[in-house]
């Protein structure tokens, strides 16, 4: 596909969203903020979007540092790009209801890879803002937060804003390093140099997660040797069955290590980093293979992760976890300890979900959190602003085919396995109602009417299969349906088992 030219220029119009009072304030202008703003707009919920940046894109303006993303946007997919289900094959495009605003990332890709470059991603996000008409007040930095009688006050570099509900879509945007003596000498992943700066060098990378492998993969052709050091063995996505492991796209260094070609992966806890005349000396202690290690390297990079820039929110009582890097959130991405404060985008991974079979939510990535934003916008509308979202009804005979179709191809369920569910409620007076997509955790833990929730799950063996959770008289039971080698869940056997699980639930 051709890359479209796009122009960016200084605007002469007054910046939108002057200081004042708004029902909702979204902080950020990355993918998470844009997505939640889009859905709030679609629902007619007035809001301001404030960002310290000077243009949209957030993390994608600068990362991945070596250019290409690790999530796919497949130009040739089993379904058409303008179909609702195409989003499963395109993890990088923000969701939109209008076909003209869908599948934007593949539109900007050259077609030489199904992983977009950072520039292609950046262009698609800019186009999303332009085409959907979203507004952001750029250059407006959120600096402080306080509770008010009916909401919150945000102090910014442009003045004070008041709102009923703040939504922080500030990403996992702040470089994070563990406490190690001398680590201040080590540049973070975010500060890694251009590829040529590492030519002929012995590079040591602190970390063995995806960002560490991204660097190793990019620098494999130029480095003399690469050593990756972290306390635990490498966890691969193909073993974890989730994006929590290192993505296969970056696994050439792993093979190099296995074949003994100049990449070394050490399970060791680093205790000291020292500058030397030639570069660095790292002292570490082996973990899975005990022993002391002293390693000399020409260059070191800390690929040790990120943290969410939570500003002064901890001062309001915001609970955090994951070594103080993530806010603890309810299934609807609200702080568990500061009611009324919500999160969108990558920080939404603070809502854990059921983590069935160890598979976490996919909310740390755009492919997952974009779906959360749709759910969050509707939740805010209905909870705070009197929105009555449309809910289609179904006939009993439509339920089994609908659920199996959703499990087979709905992007929400595939991008957010065991986490987002299609929910149908059953009521004698109202019939069968499609409640839309909801967090599975909310469905199984909160009281509610008789209902069924359908999800896609992946078990320990890596088998994908649908599962339904049926609530009757307040009790929820789990029913796991069979997998299928070609992921076809619309077989006679699936229909039979699902109908048996539902029993007489649908008899109105």
């Amino acid at each position, binding site marked *: 596909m051709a890359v479209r030219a796009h122009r960016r220029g200084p605007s002469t119009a007054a910046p939108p969203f002057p200081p004042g009072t708004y029902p909702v304030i979204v902080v950020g202008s990355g993918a998470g903020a844009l997505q939640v703003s889009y859905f709030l707009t679609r629902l007619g919920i007035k809001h301001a979007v404030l960002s310290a940046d000077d243009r949209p894109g957030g993390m994608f303006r600068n990362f991945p540092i070596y250019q290409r993303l690790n999530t796919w946007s497949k130009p040739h997919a089993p379904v058409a790009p303008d179909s609702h289900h195409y989003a499963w094959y395109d993890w990088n495009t923000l969701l939109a209801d209008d076909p003209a605003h869908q599948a934007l990332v593949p539109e900007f890709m050259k077609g030489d890879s199904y992983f977009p470059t950072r520039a292609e991603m950046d262009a698609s996000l800019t186009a999303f803002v332009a085409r959907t008409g979203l507004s952001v007040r750029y250059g407006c930095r959120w600096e402080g937060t306080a509770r008010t009688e009916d909401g919150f006050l945000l102090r910014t570099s442009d003045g004070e804003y008041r709102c009923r509900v703040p939504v922080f879509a500030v990403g996992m945007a702040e470089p994070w390093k563990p406490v190690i003596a001398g680590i201040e000498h080590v540049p973070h992943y975010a500060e890694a140099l251009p590829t040529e700066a590492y030519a002929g060098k012995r590079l040591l990378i602190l970390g063995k997660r995806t960002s560490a492998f991204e660097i190793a993969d990019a620098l494999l052709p130029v480095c003399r040797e690469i050593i990756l050091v972290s306390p635990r063995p490498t966890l691969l996505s193909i073993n974890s069955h989730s994006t929590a492991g290192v993505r296969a796209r970056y696994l050439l260094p792993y093979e190099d290590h296995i074949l003994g070609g100049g990449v070394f992966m050490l*399970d060791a806890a680093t205790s000291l980093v020292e500058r030397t005349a030639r570069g660095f000396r790292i002292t570490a202690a082996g973990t899975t293979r005990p022993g002391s290690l002293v390693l000399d390297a020409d260059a070191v990079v800390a690929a040790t992760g990120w943290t969410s820039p939570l500003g002064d929110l901890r001062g309001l009582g915001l609970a955090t976890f994951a070594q103080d890097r993530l806010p603890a959130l309810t299934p609807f991405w609200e702080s568990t300890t500061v009611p009324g404060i919500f999160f969108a985008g990558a920080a939404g991974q603070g809502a854990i979900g059921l983590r069935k079979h*160890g598979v976490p939510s996919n909310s740390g990535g755009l492919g997952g959190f974009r779906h959360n934003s749709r759910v969050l916008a509707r939740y805010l509308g209905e909870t705070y602003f009197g929105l009555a979202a449309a809910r289609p009804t179904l006939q009993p005979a439509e339920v089994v085919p609908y659920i199996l179709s959703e499990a087979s191809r709905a992007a929400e369920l595939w991008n957010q396995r065991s986490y987002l569910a299609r929910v149908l409620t059953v009521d004698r007076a109202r019939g069968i109602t499609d409640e839309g997509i909801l967090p599975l955790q909310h469905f199984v833990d909160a009281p509610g009417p008789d209902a069924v929730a359908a999800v896609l799950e992946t078990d320990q063996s890596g088998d994908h299969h649908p599962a339904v959770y049926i609530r009757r008289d307040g009790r929820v039971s789990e029913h796991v349906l069979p997998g299928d080698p070609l992921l076809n869940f619309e077989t006679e056997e699936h229909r039979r088992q699902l109908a048996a699980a539902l029993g007489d639930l649908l008899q109105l």
Partner: protein
Amino acid sequence: MPGREELLDALAGLALFADLSRPRLEEVVHTFEEEVFAEGQRILRQGFSGSNLYIILEGDAGVVIDGVQRTTLGKGDFFGEISVLLGEPPAADVVALRTLRCLVLPATDVQAFLLGHPHVTFRMLQAEARRLRSTTLWR
């Protein structure tokens, strides 16, 4: 909220990890995920497949069977291991009685972890033996 150093110190204070060196404790910190649960939140769900192994760092949890709380768990206790080891859904809910901070290890990783950390496995067996003894005495 605890950072990495505080987490390492907290682990070192748990009986389960008492025999581990500092580097091996760091490996544990990198292997397990840390999670926090609000009061009233369920962590294990009776009858649901695919649960994980949890170790309590801070807070209390109730073990609830068919809606009746049978016992409580506190700092240093672990739960979910029976379900993980036997590959069966949990026979009880585990619910946070107040803010609960845990380490979690996916079921897929438990076997490798226990085989790779025999001292932890031994300590876990001791804890299971105590539970069995107290159950027997109770009868």
